[in-house]
């Protein structure tokens, strides 16, 4: 698992470089959530909206939004496909995004139309993730998005 200070990124996930959504391949389906960079920079999640089951989303287009105390931003799909399941638990309790980002804090499961094609620009593999994490951590600290100890 890639780690820097309190930030960690599991090796088995695929990461969107810009928006920090993660994707996890589960059979032919993709579970989607927000990584620790995304959730920490947003702040404590207060409201989450997600498109209903059955909607088709395009890669990089919003399937929902996350609102925190002082921020709102789109949740952008890391892959193209049909939403087959949404996490009602995280809609009812948005803080799960912050407290369990790789577990109970997931958003949707997408039936991917072309997973292999969609993942080419996502970060994957232990070494790649660690290198990306180190660079992102430096960038986020410089931008003042993370609290200081």
């Amino acid at each position, binding site marked *: 698992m890639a780690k820097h200070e309190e930030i960690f990124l599991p090796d088995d996930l695929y990461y969107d470089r810009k928006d920090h959504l993660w994707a996890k391949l589960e059979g032919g389906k993709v579970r989607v959530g927000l990584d620790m960079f995304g959730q920490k920079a947003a*702040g404590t999640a207060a409201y989450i909206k997600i498109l209903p089951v059955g909607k088709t989303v395009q890669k990089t287009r919003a399937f929902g939004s996350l609102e925190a105390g002082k921020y709102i931003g789109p949740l952008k799909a890391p892959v193209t496909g049909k939403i087959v399941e949404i996490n009602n638990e995280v809609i009812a309790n948005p803080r799960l995004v912050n407290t369990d980002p790789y577990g109970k804090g997931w958003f949707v499961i997408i039936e991917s139309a072309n997973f292999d094609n969609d993942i080419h620009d996502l970060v994957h593999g232990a070494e790649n993730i660690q290198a990306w994490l180190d660079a992102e951590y430096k960038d986020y600290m410089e931008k003042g998005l993370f609290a200081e100890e």
Partner: protein
Amino acid sequence: MIESTNSYPEYIRTSLASAIALRFRSGRFYRDVKPYCVNLLLTYPDYCYANCAYCGLARTRPANEGNKSFIRVEWPILQTSKVIERIAKYQQNIRRVCVSMVSHPMAVSDTLNITKAISRSSQIPISVLIAPNLINEEGLLKLKDSGADTVGIGLDAASKGVFERTRGKGVKGSLSWENYWDVLGRAVRIFGLNKVSCHIIVGIGETDRELADIFFKIHELGALIHLFSFYPEPDSNMSKRRRPSLKRFRRVQLLRHLVETNCIEPEALEFGASGKNIGIKTSNGKIKEAIESGLPFVTGGCCSRGAQAVLGSGDIACNRPFGSYRPGEPFRDFPFHPEPHDITNVRKELHLEEIAVDNEVLPR
């Protein structure tokens, strides 16, 4: 006599925006808004002795245990010494610090000591939001000596009737309308014209006529008017009350601006039987000019040291981003100068075509 121990309390609250700005909390702001003022709030184990119906800190608010919301969001409790250190560290990003009192026996001496400590460690101008029920003329003079250059007074209510219902006898509160006005006048005399602000909350039961009357009265006194849009605090006495509509708040913002910039006299306003503003008589394109400037809709707050307290200049330090509305909603007040597309939206939100506006060709 005000007792002073020269030591400040160990802990203080900061607004969530200030906690992010000082990097006690991770987070970011929608549209990359920068919070320019560090807002501090005194905190005590026995909370605030007042019982204002709309306030998250009210004495009888049932959910007052723990770190509950105040003005919509969490206000983290932090070590005061560390907050003062961070203010000094990040002072290049900060235009002002505001220390807010609560109604507590220790509040005056604690405020004096915190103000002194901040003014010793940084060059940032300091405001104090005073509790008029606790402070007299001697206290105001000491505040000025301690380093505060402006003071704010949270009158909040636009009329004595609203005050009594929400802060006085109506809620078994101890605050007095007359006392607030007395201290407001003394503060203007001590700190100077446009160096005292008076906070008014829109949407807690007042009429448009009452708002207009209070705006003229505050302006005549030489104080500034800082508006807040009511946001119901969960579990407070007014938790079920609806917020003012955006249309009403926009019109009140415009009205405040027209009063503060001397663009209208009381006779220019027409009200219906219920006290609703139904007409504005003005000329020379003043309303159009005000709307197009965007200035009426910028957050009302204390300015930075370099800025003159030019009425309606929009040059503010205390911009309170997303203070009384969620980031997913239209801006109630803009923590920056609104951009052209924001002003386009504001024009629509005002719905001025619904009220009589004389001698003006209004933008649509």
